[in-house]
């Protein structure tokens, strides 16, 4: 089973079309292996990006360098998935 230990989901709020274009480019950087949960659409809509642990530093540096505001939506994806599994197990019992 694939684990997501340390992976985060970042909520990014682009300020303009230029920043949205930069965010669209992130998906093309295959080595980062980001997954756009909510794709860059327009500046009024947030962008949610699932970032694997190994890419966190690079992605955050990229956002900060380009002055793109973000917050951490999910601190550790695996923790939530473990809770979800636990709840399913409990329910079955």
């Amino acid at each position, binding site marked *: 089973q694939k684990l997501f230990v340390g992976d985060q989901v970042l*909520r990014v709020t682009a300020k303009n079309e230029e920043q949205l274009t930069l965010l669209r480019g992130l998906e093309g950087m295959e080595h980062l292996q980001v997954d756009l949960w909510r794709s860059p*659409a327009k500046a009024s809509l947030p962008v949610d990006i699932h970032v694997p642990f190994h890419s966190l530093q690079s992605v955050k540096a990229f956002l900060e360098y380009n002055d793109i505001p973000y917050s951490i939506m999910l601190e550790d994806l695996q923790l939530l998935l473990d809770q*979800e599994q636990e709840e399913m197990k409990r*329910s079955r019992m």
Partner: protein
Amino acid sequence: LVRNTNSFSYSTYHTLDEIYNWIDSLVAEHPDLVSKIQIGHTYENRPIYVLKFSTGGSNRPAIWIDTGIHSREWITQATGIWTAKKIASDYGKESTLTSILNNLDIFLLIVTNPDGFAYTHSTNRMWRKTRSINAGSACVGVDPNRNWDAGFGGPGASKNPCSETYHGAYPHSESEVKAIVDFLLSHGNVKSLLSIHSYSQMLLFPYGYTNNLAPDHEALNNLAREALSALTSLHGTKYTYGTTFATIYQADGTTIDWAYNNGIKYSYTFELRDTGRYGFILPANQIIPTAEETWLALVKIFEHVRDNPY
């Protein structure tokens, strides 16, 4: 084991086997209202089951609902289960739904992407696509909501098999999509198609592949507003609405665009909760509130379809 649909927990997530067992229980408990139809099978040879709610008649006007075409959007399959139970329980007791079912059939496809859904439980919770192999690529799967013959292959989908929005080799290449297409075309009397996704709290209607407005834009827009007013009235959940193209972005080859272009006027995509606390990992305690509020919007659409034949 599911003994009956009353002992089933609607406020937790379930595996494919559990859902398929539950479907059999629902059919057994309501043999005069509910039947199970296999409309095809998946790439990995799993059956694709649709629940048919019908009070009789021959090829009545119908409403189609599908949930879970993107397998990781677990709140949608869970909402589908709750909705099926609600329809079965309310018929004969609640006047609006009874009247709807006395005039229309409802088809409900709860697990639209069974291979993907099984994979989210066994291997990768974050899996979105189908599980078909792409020739010449190590990457597996096609986005089944970019695989329909409506602006297929345009810039609002990806040519790259490794992308989450890969459109596939050709329209309806995915057996999961082809099964629905064949069923809807052979039925020929489906008046509304509601495709349920998550998460961003939106109600979208055609088009996604073009910024042209659909001929029925005003009617679709008005009905969306009315449906969302009902939805919001329960828990105050805020939705936005509009065409896919204008509200989010260009999306080519989508279910509702295909449906609309094939004569299904009331075609909508729901994007259920939530707006950014949990994403696809919506806690199970939100299943019932989500399903309850969605139900109010669905009923508004059902009523409109019943009262506005075309």
